[in-house]
């Protein structure tokens, strides 16, 4: 399999132009004045001047040490000990996403979000946005006090004015919010409606699932999205449904899906994922078979799938036209029929008719009751497109007297936002409770800023029967008030929201309420035993099929999508997320039009990946025109272009404003709901160029292609070592394994020997580890220009490799990029036992520890960068600038203002200019774990010491542990054999990247296994 495969990181590598080859041989892509400047070499006098100045500066600086203060608490809280972290269970809730988390606080400051292992809903993982959300707490852009018409005011004044206006309101009062799954919030709004009457609550979702919900309402009578369990699925077929990327409960989807992909001696079966989609998504990247289709074809494909299955089931088929190429579809149908009830078919369409066929297919397969539980619903999506457009109409007609925008931003994130903006003045009262400035607060008369979720009490029921509590982990930083408490005040209820939530829970307690409450607060989650009731399903397939607009449009179609960092745009002002490279395109700080390579060639939209220069085009949809750069994207379905949501903010703060364009404007708002794809778009002219910052090619392996080792399931079942590359080197004794021969005296480990496994088969590429690491290790944000200079600082990056069959070369480029396979490989410092970086450091700033870690002493580093040059993995990152307390890096919010700095981890140094840095395997966590064990006179237990990336990984793809501990997971997984010269893994799938170099890393990779058939004619 390996022999006839080509791996490539980007198009430029596939082309392999002489220029690329020349550049890839260099470490630094830009000109470096190493051998003198343009005016000539620096003179001896210059050197002496610098020396003299340096000496003077040092001696002056050393004259007097600054007086530092030590300020204790006035009254120390019992539970807070300076220097000791406290952990509180709480619930992440921003936008419509809800997830149980554990918040790490230091001296009363939340500094890290981690998953809550007790949660059955999330499974203990997090997402990039959850990890990054702690920085949004310390954002100076938050609204710092209540306001009336833009002027600061007091809460009393605000309450009196609002109460008077609501009481005299003759029209409707409408509360607009994202989907709400908080029972107590529901009760608080009920208080408001009871008080004023004629209160309507309109819920919507930035990325609407209204069509799906409507379909379920038609099919079951219950407008709810049922719980999908991917862990029970043997065959998953996704039609543009990015369940690994932006679907409700993404963390759990990742965990469940990854659990079906794990392989060991006892489990040699895995699920198979089919993906039919237009843009290359995370789900598509992880698919075993992927078929690029146009969005207008989706309904047709689904109807054809129904027919294929109906034939097998002996049910009557429906009349529909057939698809052009049904090879993959037929294969999918066969697999679905074989796995029957252990199947899931999902679609990302917002068309109720399409979704009804999907329901019919799942019903036909018998998925309800096994993989899909329709007795329980996922309550994080409730939005209704028709209710929302109805509200906008009423607003236009002046029937709405008061409108409360409860923590939502429809002016920005709804295609009808423009109409709200121009008609909001028709409502006498407009209130926004958003905790930060956004496009909607700009048009609201009253601002009643809510607490951040880390300052709030709340409860949620994200899934039927599964409750999750939210508790404040810091008292409110600004003069804000919890929105629900505002509703209670306006509804003349003087309870605090805390008491109000507790009162709501009083009926759940069986024994003593206080101890019950404390337990729930401690755990963060509670199951109330509500099993729900399943409802029967009936779909009139024949009639819905006829409703599907089957277009055979020949024009180019636009698909807007939400990406994996910025998502729907709520987090746009978070620089960590802005700088996170998109897992697929590896671009950050912008949105851009992804097009197929063929389209780019035909329209002269060539892209220069080396200089990252893209052509600018104007995209017009229904009269709205936007100017965007174009990136040719392998895997993009021919005839489609993609554009990410969440950018183009105008009032979100200094980080987000004016980055990219607002793709919500291009979403079609039709009578039947929102449509995230549009045909009949026009793309005109390459009017200029634009630089898009990408991290894609800045680290290359220069053709050493064995970094990814993969096989297919059947091969693995025959030989667990299938796909492995086993290098041999010539020695005096003949061909030997590289590790058999050494010049070095190898390290011996008495105590611990830390190591990590990366399971390439489980990694879905989501990027949560990157952000978790950034939060944990105080990694700076360098800004777009520095990313363009290839100086991003992330300690763990996810390398994305495309692979395709066929010969390398220009003529095959388009064919190869039409639908490539994708592999994600998290890459961080490999902590080599014979580390090449250690031997070249002239000042011994990087050395090896007795526990297997490759250590980096920043204060010793003089910045020669020899280590980075000598690192075969290119994981060492150099601080070209002082990124903290530097106005030139104002986007680096966590290090450039007093508020932002509160997020820094006090146990990790903030590095300064001129030093090298890299993954430390979270040595601060290792040290803390060891100390805890020593204090308790015991050895550390496996699992209690873990790194930030391992803890965050929703797919459980990373394993960290002590390779000396026979009870550890890593020891058992690798089947460790301790040899004289280091450690050997008996697990056949385990390999070291670049094994032939004999650097003997402590990070192991497990081969990627694709669930493809042998001799398969379908090249996916």
């Amino acid at each position, binding site marked *: 399999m390996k022999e006839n495969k080509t791996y490539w990181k980007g198009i430029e590598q596939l082309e392999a132009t002489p220029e690329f080859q020349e550049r890839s041989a260099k470490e630094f892509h830009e000109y470096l004045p190493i051998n003198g400047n343009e005016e000539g070499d620096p003179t001896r006098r210059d050197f002496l001047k610098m020396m003299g100045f340096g000496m003077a500066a040092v001696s002056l600086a050393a004259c007097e040490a600054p007086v530092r203060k030590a300020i204790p608490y006035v009254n120390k809280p019992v539970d807070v000990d300076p*220097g000791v972290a406290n952990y509180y269970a709480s619930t992440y809730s921003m936008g419509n996403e809800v997830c149980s988390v554990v918040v790490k606080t230091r001296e009363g400051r939340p500094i890290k979000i981690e998953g809550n292992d007790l949660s059955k809903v999330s499974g203990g993982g997090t997402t990039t946005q959850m990890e990054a959300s702690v920085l949004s707490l310390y954002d100076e852009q938050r609204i710092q006090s209540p306001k009336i018409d833009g002027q600061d005011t007091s809460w009393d004044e605000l309450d009196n004015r609002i109460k008077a206006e609501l009481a005299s309101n003759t029209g409707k009062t409408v509360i607009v919010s994202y989907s709400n799954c908080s029972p107590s919030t529901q009760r608080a709004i009920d208080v408001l409606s009871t008080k004023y009457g004629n209160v309507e609550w309109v819920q919507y979702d930035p990325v609407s699932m209204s069509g799906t919900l409507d379909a379920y309402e038609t099919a079951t009578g219950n407008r709810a999205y049922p719980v999908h369990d991917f862990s029970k699925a043997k065959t998953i077929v996704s039609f543009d449904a990015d369940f690994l990327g932006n679907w409700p409960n993404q963390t759990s989807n990742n965990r469940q899906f990854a659990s079906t992909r794990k392989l060991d001696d006892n489990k040699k079966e895995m699920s198979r994922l089919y993906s039919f989609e237009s843009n290359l998504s995370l789900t598509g990247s992880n698919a075993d078979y992927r078929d690029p289709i146009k969005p207008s074809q989706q309904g047709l494909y689904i109807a054809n799938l129904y027919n294929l299955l109906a034939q097998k089931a002996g049910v009557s088929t429906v009349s529909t036209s057939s698809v052009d190429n049904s090879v993959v579809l037929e294969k999918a149908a066969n697999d679905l029929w074989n796995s029957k009830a252990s199947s899931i078919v999902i679609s990302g369409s917002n068309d109720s008719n399409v979704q009804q066929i999907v329901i019919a297919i799942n019903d036909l397969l018998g998925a309800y009751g096994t993989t899909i539980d329709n007795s329980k619903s996922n309550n994080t999506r409730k939005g209704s497109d028709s209710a929302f457009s109805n509200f906008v109409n009423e607003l236009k007609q002046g029937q709405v007297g008061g409108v409360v925008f409860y923590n939502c931003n429809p002016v920005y994130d709804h295609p009808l936002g423009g109409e709200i903006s121009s008609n909001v003045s028709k409502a006498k009262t407009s209130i926004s409770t958003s905790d930060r400035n956004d496009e909607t607060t700009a048009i609201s008369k009253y601002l009643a800023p809510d607490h951040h979720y880390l300052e709030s009490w709340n409860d949620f029921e994200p899934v039927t029967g599964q409750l999750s509590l939210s508790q404040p982990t810091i008292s409110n930083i600004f003069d804000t008030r919890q929105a629900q408490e505002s509703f209670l005040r306006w509804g003349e209820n003087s309870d605090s929201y805390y008491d109000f939530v507790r009162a709501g829970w009083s009926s759940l307690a069986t024994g003593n309420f206080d101890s019950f409450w404390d337990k729930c607060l401690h755990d963060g989650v509670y199951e109330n035993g509500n099993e729900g009731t399943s409802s029967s399903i009936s779909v009139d397939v024949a009639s819905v099929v006829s409703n599907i607009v089957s277009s055979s449009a020949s024009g180019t179609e636009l698909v807007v999508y939400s990406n994996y960092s910025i998502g729907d745009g709520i987090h746009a002002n978070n620089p960590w997320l802005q700088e996170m490279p998109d897992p697929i395109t590896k671009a950050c700080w912008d949105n851009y039009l992804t097009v197929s390579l063929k389209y780019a060639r035909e329209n002269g939209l060539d892209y220069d990946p080396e200089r990252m220069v893209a052509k600018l085009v104007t995209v017009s949809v229904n009269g709205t025109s936007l100017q965007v750069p174009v990136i040719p994207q392998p895997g993009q379905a021919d005839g489609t272009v993609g554009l990410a949501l969440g950018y183009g903010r105008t009032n979100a703060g200094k980080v987000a404003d004016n980055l990219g364009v607002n793709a919500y404007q291009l979403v079609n708002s039709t009578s039947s709901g929102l449509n995230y794809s549009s045909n009949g778009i026009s793309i005109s002219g390459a009017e200029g160029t634009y630089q898009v910052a990408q991290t894609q090619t800045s680290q290359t392996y220069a053709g050493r292609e064995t970094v990814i080792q993969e096989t297919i399931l059947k091969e693995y079942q025959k030989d667990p070592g299938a796909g492995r590359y086993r290098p041999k080197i010539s020695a005096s004794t003949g061909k030997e394994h590289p590790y058999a021969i050494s010049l070095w005296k190898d390290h011996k480990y008495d105590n611990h020997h830390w190591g990590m496994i990366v399971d390439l088969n489980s990694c879905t590429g989501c990027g949560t580890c990157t952000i978790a690491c950034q939060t944990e290790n105080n990694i700076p944000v360098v800004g777009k220009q520095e990313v363009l200079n290839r100086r991003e600082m992330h300690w763990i990056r996810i390398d994305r490799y495309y692979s395709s069959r066929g010969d390398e070369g220009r003529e095959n480029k388009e064919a190869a990029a039409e639908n490539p396979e994708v592999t994600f490989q998290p890459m961080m410092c490999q902590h080599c036992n014979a580390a090449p970086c250690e031997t070249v450091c002239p000042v011994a700033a990087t050395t090896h520890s007795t526990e297997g870690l490759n250590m980096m002493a920043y*204060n010793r580093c003089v910045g020669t960068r020899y280590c980075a040059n000598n690192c075969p993995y290119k994981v060492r990152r150099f601080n070209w600038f002082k990124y903290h307390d530097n106005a030139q890096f104002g986007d680096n919010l966590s290090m450039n203002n007093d508020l932002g700095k509160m997020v820094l981890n006090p146990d990790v*140094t903030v590095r300064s200019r001129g030093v090298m840095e890299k993954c430390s395997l979270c040595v601060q966590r290792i040290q803390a774990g060891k100390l805890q064990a020593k204090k308790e006179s015991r050895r550390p237990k496996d699992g209690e010491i873990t790194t930030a990336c391992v803890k965050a990984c929703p797919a459980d793809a990373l394993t960290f542990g002590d390779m000396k501990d026979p009870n550890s997971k890593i020891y058992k997984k690798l089947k460790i054999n301790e040899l004289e010269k280091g450690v050997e893994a008996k697990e056949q799938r385990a390999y070291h990247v670049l094994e032939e170099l004999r650097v003997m890393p402590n990070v192991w990779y497990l081969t990627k296994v694709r669930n493809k058939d042998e001799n398969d004619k379908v090249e996916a």
Partner: protein
Amino acid sequence: MLKKVTDLTKKALISAFGFLLVTVVFSQEIPSDEAVIAAGEATFKANCTQCHQIHKKVIGPALAGVYERRSIEWLNAWIRNSQALIASGDEDAIAIYEEYNRTQMTAYPFDDNQIMELLAYIQAETIKGPPVEEVAVAATGTAEGDSVSSSYLTAVIIILVVVLVLALIALVIAVNTLTKYLKEKKDLGEEEEELVNQSFDLMATLKSNSFLGLVVFVFTLIVLKTLIDGAFTIGVQTGYQPTQPIAFSHKIHAGQYEIDCQYCHTGVRKSKSANIPSPNICMNCHTQVKTESEEIQKIYAAIDYDPSTQTYGTNTKPIEWVRIHNLPDLAYFNHSQHVDVAEIECQTCHGPIEEMEVVYQYSNLTMGWCINCHRETDVNTKGNEYYNKLVKLHSERSKEPMKVEDIGGLECAKCHY
């Protein structure tokens, strides 16, 4: 035969019962076992010294002979919850409460054993009697001894120098006399005359290249040495003794009253920082003690406490102590590792803190100082299962005790990350 056996059993039973009885009776007696007294001393020093001494009335009464004044049951009740005892109307309790200005004694949830240990310690101390000023005398004695020996050494050196100078003078006189005598002699050979008449040209010697070279070399060495020494003191603040906003004396609290360090520095066993105590710890005693003192008034001002009404206001202002021990941010130091795991005395690094009226930086806190200690110090492995394997492996290779250095205590990432 059978009878014998039964008798034996009987006897055994009786003696066992008797033993039990004896134990029961004696359990009410205050033990005098060394270990028990030591345990009592630890408990006493950690909890009681803030307010009590054995032979001296401090905040609370002197405790010498308290086990004779009160019953053990009464003491148990009092220690565990004095307020409850007072509320129950116990006359003795009320009398003490009134005598000591209605100062509430903190309730300590000690078990019977701990209280017996305490009493054992108090009994032992009572029997010893009040400490005589002997210790101080002895200390002065040694100090005097030291100064005598050092002045003796100086005297010896001075005498030696004087003797040497005298010898030199004598030699010069002898040479001069001899030269004079030889000059007067006429019957000398040419060579001999030359030898006698040669004169020492000082200027020529001073101007000679070799001499100048030597001087420049020595001078350069001295300058370099001074510079290097100077450079090593940059940022080193040994002896740094800033004036603090409140004249708190460790000499009184830690020295005179022997209050355990942890009573105030609560974080020292659980956290990386030992913690500067917050005023609520001060107020455990200073609601009653020295309330009129100007320095204590500063605490009241910080926490907005009105001693006349004993109420707290809201206008608080944290006390800004001047930080004495400043480690650079790039170094990670953890108190609990050293105090709890390694069981190192505070004084090892902080010096004789119990003698400091105003605290100063005792150690130089340089990396060399850290490293040196890690090279010399044995790892405190006793009873700590974490180290078992390491100790075993170490003892196979070496006869020396296991130093911190041997288990990676000199590695960069132990302190720098």
